[in-house]
């Protein structure tokens, strides 16, 4: 190893390339970290299956990294990433479009625009509020949510265990979701009022 005390060693050409690549990787990671939850939410809103969303996020991330050099640093990363995710989702849906149960590509494009309007901070707040609101639910409602939304989400099994029809469980879930969403809206509004108080 060369370089005595206090001596600055200039990197070789290779080392320069490596250093540049590492910088780019770090930059990409920063972008992704900031926007990944919105990207994920966007994909999930289109495919509505968490496992599919997982796979599509992974595929999209690989493509984003490969194309990162093309990304205009002045542009909106979320819009760019959601645009690429949209194409991945379209490919994915084409392969399994047994029924027309997905939105058109035109609408998916509009949804990208709506998605990027929600800020990272706002989404974090909403998530925070959701956790609080879940705590406020009745125990049995929380249990039903947990059964139907956890790893092996299965409404039919939850209905069987309760000796209820699937439709009645779907109705309960709908009521709980609506209550949670309203609770989130209320919580955010209260927070905003507090912050505005002199």
């Amino acid at each position, binding site marked *: 190893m060369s370089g005595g005390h206090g001596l600055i060693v200039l990197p070789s050409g290779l080392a320069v390339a490596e250093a540049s690549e590492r910088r780019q990787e770090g930059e990409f990671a920063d972008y992704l970290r900031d926007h990944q939850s919105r990207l994920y939410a966007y994909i999930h809103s289109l495919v509505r299956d968490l496992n599919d969303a997982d796979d599509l996020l992974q595929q999209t991330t690989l493509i984003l990294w490969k194309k990162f050099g093309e990304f205009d640093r002045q542009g909106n990363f979320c819009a760019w990433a959601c645009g690429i995710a949209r194409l991945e989702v379209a490919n994915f849906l084409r392969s*399994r479009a047994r029924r027309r149960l997905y939105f058109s590509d035109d609408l998916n494009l509009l949804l990208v625009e709506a998605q990027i309007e929600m800020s990272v901070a706002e989404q974090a707040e909403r998530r925070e509020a959701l956790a609080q609101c879940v705590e406020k639910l009745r125990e049995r409602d929380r249990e039903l949510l947990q059964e139907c939304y956890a790893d092996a989400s299965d409404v039919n099994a939850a209905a069987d265990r309760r000796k209820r029809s699937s439709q009645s469980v779907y109705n309960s879930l709908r009521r709980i979701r609506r209550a949670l969403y309203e609770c989130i809206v209320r919580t955010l509004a209260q927070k905003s009022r507090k912050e505005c108080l002199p």
Partner: protein
Amino acid sequence: MTEPQPTSSRLVDLVDVYVSGQLDEGGLDELESLLVADSEALRYFVHYASFHTDLHLEMRARNAGRRALSALGHLGGADFTGSAPDAEVMQPRWWALPRIWLAVAGLLILAGAASWMQGWIGVPSVHDDAGPAIAWLVNAQNCQWADGAADTGDMQAGTILRLERGLAEIRFQCGATAVIEGPAELELLTARRARLRRGRLTAKVPQEASGFEVLSPQGKVIDLGTEFGIHVAESGVTDVVIFDGKVEAHVNGSHDRSNDRGVSLTRNQSARIAEGKITLQTAKSEELDQFVRAIVPPPVITPRTMRLTFQNSVDATLRDKSGAGIGLTHRLPGTGSRLETNDPNLLLDPRAAQLELTTTESDLNTKFRLARGEYLGVRLADLGFTGSEDFAVAVTIPDIPALELVGQVGVYAGPRSDQNIRGGVISRGLGEYTQFLVNNHDGNDADFNRVGLFPTGTDLRLTLKRSGGKYLLRLENLTLGNASTLTNRHPEFLDRQSDFFVGVFAANTQSKVRRTIVLKEFEATVWTVSSRSTR
């Protein structure tokens, strides 16, 4: 930012039904037109859908947390299971994100350490070229691959499996498994999709892998959580059978998605996809049977043999005239009951390594004087026999003496004296023998079969064997070095029996003249069967 206000209660309803996956095609159209027409509706949708994603993740987090706390409770004796986990404990919730997401998000936290980038997203192209594994070969039996390879674990998109013969089981990343039977050609497209170019495939698809697709040259089959078989002929004609659950069959060439609803098939239905149409029918059992639904490992067959060379006395076995244990443990039930414990007709000669057996006047045919009959042997249950296994009994008899007419020596098998099969040599008088095999049902000989002639003084090795349920008697002429095998009408009356005795006998059936037979090398074998677990 102001909270988007839903423009109508109808929008609220449609959005909720959409995110829950319950919206039908008409509802989807209605929702789409509402969203396209109104940007506030679009904003509401994005907020609600985002909330729904968060709800999924939150619930996964809580479940994982509950499991983790429950595990801690077991370790420390504390009871966490009765109460909901503390919200504080659940924060932050990032660790609850799904598997791949977790890998991405978690590793990104270490983004400063760029080594992750090289390892995963990384530029080194080996990984990129190969692509991630979408399926794994998890089991194989008697496989011969066309390219002599493919016997590997991980398989990427685009992999084409060309199986010439044998069975291979593939597990897809989505959880579906497929067994292909050679000759077959399968192209792996994605973690949920494969194209069967030809051959036979059976797929098992758990509920979570619903939507798994198998494409064929004529159409495709979409699984909705079930088990089905698909066969693609060389012509491309595709047959589908459903063992359980439900699938949708589609034909090629239907580009209009709204018309391409496919044909639903349920349990025990089959369909042929050919020439742009699907023909539905009830699956015949022969059709169902043609598919291998699981790779069942071949049973392990272990021969368990008892071999006696008569070189020493064996305790706790039948005794000869001097009280020496001869090694054989049982008599055919219904015979020898009046013979003395130290049987005067038996003499063990360890130095000559032989057992001498003097015939008695008895006959299984007509149950003649069987209380004094010499039908020595072993009980097959002692060798693991339960009723269905193959078995054999063999004995060497050197220098056969001249028995009087119809005197006989040989080997037997059966549960008792009036239900058995026996074979060996039977005297024709005048110093000649002939090989025979006969069934004895209810005490009377039937289906008597004989062949060949032997002079006295010949050395013989007799083997009575049951193989695949069929009996045969093999006689090796050790003097001349030749052999002949005799089979007989199948003794159905023995098929239901499970407690068998096999052994050796010698009798002067219709004569008072007794002779002594020398026995060497007695052997009884049961081929026990046990299943082997799959790997």
